[in-house]
């Protein structure tokens, strides 16, 4: 039996986090605010990745490729054919004539990428473990080449510059503040969606398939449906993150979402903790700040160069896998155990 204290405690923690996110811009510089915006964007991408890898047990090394699809969808919708031609290139006729407001492109990017993710999920059904990792890695490696090849749709290697974003509807917010709230409102909504999915019937089905496909089938769970669904949802999350990213930097090119980002995303999910939503926030902070801190004091005095970030990342990942399989979330769980024990007493 769960006592009423557990949901109340969870609600308090969430409300506290939301409040902290809401008031943070008052206490921080615009530069820092930009970094926290990236944390929000990575948070969205990692939520999707953790649904796919942590909950449904399918590994992907191509998450950044889905971010790229979302980013390009948003960029093309923002520019429209007229904006595209202003960049001095001939535009494909599939584009709408006029551009859209940036904020409306975010859900569309999520939907488009989600549909593409479902389509990719169907051949992926026949693959598991290593083969799936291979196929997704190959997608991630090839996507920049494909983007460069189809210039009429992507602007080729030169990329697409977007108009500088600003707060819509006449709201009085500076651009960094607006982008920060945009990212974190998306993150908040998608966190709630993920939480509802994971704790309900769908989440149970995913975990059942992950822990034993045969047993899941015998219990009436269709792996094909739920695995494809996981791919679609993960891709939709990546699409939203990619759109947010493209809007944040107001530029996109084939190398905006490199293969290494796919690998670092997977690493961050594992560092935060597979199959843990609270671990995702740790992962997002690690992904944004670990490379930055790897080149600042005291580490910089050890003559760490810019490339030291990935080394620290890779070593951290290996240490976590070897020593703390549950990731940061399991450490967090150990620290908060007395409180949770009290709440569910």
């Amino acid at each position: 039996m769960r006592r009423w204290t557990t949901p109340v405690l969870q609600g308090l923690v969430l409300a506290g986090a939301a409040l902290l996110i809401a008031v943070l811009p008052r206490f921080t510089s615009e530069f820092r605010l930009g970094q926290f915006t990236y944390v929000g964007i990575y948070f969205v991408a990692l939520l999707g990745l953790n649904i796919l890898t942590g909950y449904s047990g399918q590994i992907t090394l191509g998450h950044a490729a889905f971010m790229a699809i979302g980013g390009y969808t948003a960029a093309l919708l923002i520019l429209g054919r007229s904006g595209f031609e202003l960049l001095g290139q001939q535009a494909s006729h599939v584009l709408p004539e006029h551009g859209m407001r940036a904020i409306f492109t975010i859900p569309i990017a999520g939907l488009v990428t989600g549909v593409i993710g479902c389509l990719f999920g169907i051949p992926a059904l026949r693959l598991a473990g290593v083969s799936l990792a291979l196929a997704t890695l190959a997608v991630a490696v090839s996507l920049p080449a494909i983007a460069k090849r189809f210039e009429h749709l992507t602007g080729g290697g030169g990329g697409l510059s977007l108009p500088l974003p600003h707060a819509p509807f006449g709201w009085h917010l500076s651009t960094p503040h607006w982008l920060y709230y945009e990212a974190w409102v998306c993150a908040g909504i998608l966190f709630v969606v993920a939480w509802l999915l994971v704790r309900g019937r769908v989440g149970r089905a995913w975990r059942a398939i992950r822990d034993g496909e045969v047993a899941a089938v015998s219990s009436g769970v269709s792996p094909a449906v739920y695995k494809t669904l996981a791919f679609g949802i993960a891709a939709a999350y990546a699409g939203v993150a990619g759109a947010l990213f493209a809007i944040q930097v107001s530029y996109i090119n084939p190398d905006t979402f490199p293969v290494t980002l796919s690998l670092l995303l997977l690493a961050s999910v594992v560092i935060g903790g597979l199959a843990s939503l609270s671990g995702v926030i740790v992962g997002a902070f690690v992904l944004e700040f670990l490379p930055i801190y790897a080149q600042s004091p005291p580490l910089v005095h050890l003559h760490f160069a810019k490339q030291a970030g990935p080394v620290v990342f890779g070593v951290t990942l290996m240490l976590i896998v070897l020593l703390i399989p549950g990731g940061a979330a399991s450490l967090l769980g150990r620290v908060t155990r007395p409180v949770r024990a009290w709440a569910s007493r």
Partner: protein
Amino acid sequence: MALPLAFTWTEFGQQVTSGLASGAIYASLALALVLIYQTTNVVNFAQGEMATFTTYVAWTMMHHGLSYWPAFVLTLLIAFGGGVTVERVLIRPVEHRPEIVIVILTIGLFIAINGLVGWVFGPEVKAFDSPFPNRSVVLGGVSISVQDIGTFGVCLGTVVALWLFFRLTTLGLAMRAVAFNPDASRLMGVRVGWMLALGWGFAAVLGAIAGMMAAPTVFLDPDMMLVVLIYAFAAAVLGGIDSPVGAVVGGLLIGVVINLLGAYVNFVGQELRLPTALAVLLIVLVIRPSGLFGRVVVRKV
């Protein structure tokens, strides 16, 4: 965009031979992947990065005045030691954990080595000397560069040497036994753990050769083996991920077919070679997961 060439048999022969040369490089790396897959049952995603690192080691030795072949041999020894160390230190502790854990560990190794190479040697592209003279020989109207012949010879020579080792020596027999049935080999007194480590060592040697052979044409940079690794994956999957013969045949096939498609199919051109390999990979995985030469695995429930 690459213009399609007017078709002549000499041109075709040249495309095939240069495809065979790059195919031999893919075959070496694919064989490295298969070696590890056979024994440890895991695909080593860091294989290409390990190769990149050893190639940089070779470059450093030559930069400090060592001539090519001594540096080559020393690099192979270092690669072997490195491979064995990686197995002992990183893979052994997670041997019995789920496949996904080992995959993630090799990805950690990938990220770390990729970063390390950029950090230690710098991100700028470096030229890597070729041991072969820069000229061509004409064979039946087809001019073949000595570089290509040398690459093909070194890669295939290593493969044959390795094959002889596995067929003719007791150690090779023990390693094959471990790949076939680790439990039974342990009962027969084979040191299974060390055989696995040796497998990683040999795989690293093959990777090092692939790296040093690829470097003169693709130049040295931290990401040089990423594309080669994808081709090698495609080759290993095409041949059957548990078949050494399949890896070599698959590698040569991928090298030739991709080269011909790039030269003669306008749509593919230079840019879409890699996505074409991806398409091959996906089609094989979906239609015939055991590849051309692989064992068909029947999953019992």
